[in-house]
């Protein structure tokens, strides 16, 4: 019954992401053992002590279809952790969330490409993870490389790429994969002056088609330009969620 209700509710208000009391807790042992041997020895020495660290503390919010929401907060405030949970990479310690549609996270610079293989080879895997069958990637390959502006290096080993070039490739592939919800983590920090406007144009196009974006960044002016609403995280807690202008203003005071 309750499930049905929430489904209708979502339909009416076009909520695509809803999180309910998400908590992510890490247990940090004072003496970390990574070996089975050490673990067994530790049993004899007595109890190991832990420290609990809450990366996210009771975070609840909902995002509407087609909006671009900013995510700001100081280093270590839990932005990446939140994106990782929404992207299905890690699981929350407690709480739950629902997502309507396909979701793709763009987190970190390396994006986990394998350095020993060519850029093209890497894209086949990355594209597959993003839900593109081989045939589709093959068709889009030219577009991806030209958008990223690295056509010349198609067959170069990825380890020889600069981090900026890898970020370009990752973003270009992501755009082609066309997920319903995009989770962006600091993508502009390595892009150069040509690439950032290019990305922003793409993002605008993407939003016109009713897609949703959650955009974490330290670049407050980019957030102010792009996002109507913004979430402020502070020490794992959702401090504020509202019109970007107000949130950014408040953020500057803390």
């Amino acid at each position, binding site marked *: 019954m309750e499930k049905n209700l929430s489904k209708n509710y979502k339909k009416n208000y076009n909520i695509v992401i809803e999180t309910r009391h998400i908590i992510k807790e890490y247990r940090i042992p004072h003496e970390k053992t*990574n070996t089975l041997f050490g673990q067994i020895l530790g049993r004899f020495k007595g109890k190991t002590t832990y420290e609990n660290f809450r990366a996210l503390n009771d975070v609840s919010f909902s995002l509407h279809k087609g909006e671009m929401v900013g995510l700001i907060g100081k280093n270590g405030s839990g932005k990446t952790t939140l994106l990782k949970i929404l992207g299905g990479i890690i699981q929350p310690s407690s709480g739950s969330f629902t997502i309507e549609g396909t979701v793709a996270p763009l987190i970190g610079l390396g994006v986990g490409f394998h350095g*020993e*293989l060519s850029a093209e080879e890497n894209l086949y895997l990355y594209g597959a*993870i993003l839900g593109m069958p081989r045939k589709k990637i093959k068709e889009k390959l030219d577009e991806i490389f030209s958008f990223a502006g690295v056509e010349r290096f198609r067959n170069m080993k990825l380890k020889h790429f600069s981090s900026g070039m890898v970020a370009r490739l990752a973003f270009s592939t992501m755009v082609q994969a066309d997920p319903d919800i995009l989770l962006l983590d600091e993508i502009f920090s390595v892009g150069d002056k040509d690439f950032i406007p290019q990305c922003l144009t793409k993002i605008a196009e993407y939003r016109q088609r009713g897609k949703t974006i959650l955009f974490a960044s330290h670049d407050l002016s980019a957030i102010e330009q792009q996002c109507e609403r913004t979430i402020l995280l502070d020490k794992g807690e959702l401090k504020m969620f509202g019109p970007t202008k107000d949130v950014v203003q408040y953020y500057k005071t803390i």
Partner: protein
Amino acid sequence: MKAKKNHWNVIYELARLDFKLKYYGSALGFLWSLLKPFLMLGILYVVFFYFLKVTIPNYEIYLFLGIITWNFFADTTKDIAPGISSKAHLLQSTSLTPATVIAGTILHSLWTFLITLVIFFIFFFALGLHLTGSAIMLLILIPLLVLITTGVSLCIAPLYMRFNDFGHMWDILLQMLFWATPIVYDYKIVPASVAKWYLLNPITRVIVDMRNAVLYGFFPEPKQMLITLTITALIYFIGTVIFKKYGKKFIEEL
């Protein structure tokens, strides 16, 4: 449905890249993976046939089938750890799951196994031997072998991820298991008092049935086959339960 299909795409791409990476830049390329079973075959053949005077007919082909079957199990379970750690970045930044990575490793091993199986049959016919209808059992036994290997891989993968020294222990266990499996000798020489336990080893059961099907033209007894199926199902079930509980937990520890 679509998600399921995409899952297979990712597994296929992972297996393909692993295949490529494994033999990348080595002059002998794929031959390396064939050299290993052949060297093993040569050494064991010399020791057991010439020195210890084993009297099994067609011992070379008997040994060959045992070795490639064993190697599939041993190599796959050993490859699980590097398979996961080499994709740590992808696991931490995309929706790729450890289960998919493991499936990719298994598919990659299966390709290698099937190629060695083809070489086995070239040898088999070159020696003037003939297949009978019972060889059709391979179509059941090979999937069983894959299921057993998958079940065991799922059980040990969390241990690999959590404990750095688990690989050493698994190596030793595999050594023991190698001699506890009728690869170089016939299972009938095992004393009756321990045979009951000895025959619980599913790899033993698969190897014995494979030899019966390919070399001796026997179908397995229905009752024995039922036991094999039960053990396989049990291992697979335990594997999925363990992995479901611990599989995702350790991504953050990689």
